[in-house]
């Protein structure tokens, strides 16, 4: 048999029974006392219910209405986020990058899936996928097209490849027609994709 067939079959047995294998590993780790199922439950629940893009949206909304906070956010996003108190604590080296009429920012991790969990939650499948990781750095306009986003031809696109433990959040431009909106209402239009750079805040008319 050619060796490729060998690998192919091997891959299969590696993947087909993933649920059973995960359960077996948890059983072994629990029997050994390395993990406590209640701790596992708690972590899963935290990610499913508490940690999500609403944390990031509050930072952006505040930056839109408070120039001092915006300046602080762009200077040191970790410190600025933690100064708000009411969002989850943010680890070191969160960096906010600002979209302007001249420059649009797009965040990717070509090597794995680095992502600012504390402010955006866990990354979506597409962010971790080969199409996004491969194309964001060479064909960002094509990637944006997949999201239905089209930028002016002369807008500079700045791609941030998260190759270290620094983490990036995009500060999108505040759309027209939101002049009198409250911070809470603004936060509602700041989607996760806006803070990755694959979306733009939209005002429903």
């Amino acid at each position: 048999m050619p060796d490729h067939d060998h690998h192919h079959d091997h891959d299969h047995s590696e993947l087909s029974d993933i649920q059973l294998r995960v359960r077996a590993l948890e059983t072994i780790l629990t029997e050994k006392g390395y993990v406590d199922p209640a701790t596992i439950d708690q972590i899963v629940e935290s990610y499913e219910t508490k940690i999500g893009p609403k944390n990031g949206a509050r930072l952006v909304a505040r930056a839109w209405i408070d120039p001092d906070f915006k300046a602080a956010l762009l200077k040191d996003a970790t410190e600025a986020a933690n100064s708000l108190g009411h969002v989850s604590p943010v680890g070191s080296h969160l960096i906010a990058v600002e979209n302007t009429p001249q420059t649009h920012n797009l965040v990717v991790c070509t090597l794995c899936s680095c992502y600012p969990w504390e402010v955006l939650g866990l990354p979506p499948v597409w962010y971790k996928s080969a199409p996004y990781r491969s194309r964001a750095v060479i064909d960002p306009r094509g990637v944006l097209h997949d999201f239905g986003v089209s930028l002016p031809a002369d807008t500079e696109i700045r791609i941030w490849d998260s190759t270290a433990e620094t983490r990036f959040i995009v500060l999108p431009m505040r759309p027209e027609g939101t002049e009198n909106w409250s911070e809470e209402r603004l936060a509602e239009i700041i989607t996760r994709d806006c803070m990755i750079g694959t979306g733009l805040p939209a005002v429903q008319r």
Partner: protein
Amino acid sequence: MSNTVHDMGGMHGFGPVEPEPNEPVFHAPWEGRVHAMQRVLGAAGLWSIDGGRASLETLNPATYLASTYYQRWYLGLERRVVNYGLVGADELATGHSLRPAKQLAGTLTLADAQKPPIRGNFERPPAAPAKFKAGDRVRTVEMNPPTHTRLPRYARDKAGVVEAIRGCHVYPDTAALDVHDENPQWLYTVVFTGQELWGPASDPTIKVSIEAFEPYLLPA
């Protein structure tokens, strides 16, 4: 390893990005269990975050591409618990513990898990002043180590500009091999034009930055 298929920046052929409206945090309960087990065991300090990454990068490339994200996490975690002596292959085969546990320095407890998670801090005191400053022209090195690195292939041997110093951090290339070999290095944001990276036919409106450790950079 450095040049496995995980280093996919600039590759063609994977098709369009497929956004999934209203996607759940986990697509199956086992994904959440894998995520959480990784966090609990990661706290024991046996391996570094880069050691964890390396365990996924060394999967056979065909397996890597055929796997979903959490399948890769599981396969990497399984490798690590075996390689670090926490679980035996015989135990994985039977699905039960067959011998007493190894003593661990510490894992995440329920009380820890009830607090909001916070990322580790990888900044460390520098051994020497930073060699570069914002505005400096640099060239990335050419290197293709068989071990872990965070300098992507597409950004090797390319001319760029330092945009910012990000502090002095644990060096992934050594910490991946040994959690105790932190070997802290200055970290910089280095920007390249799309045309430098991809050639004259590249979209001229593109700029790409990487987060580059000092050993990845030469003066230019």
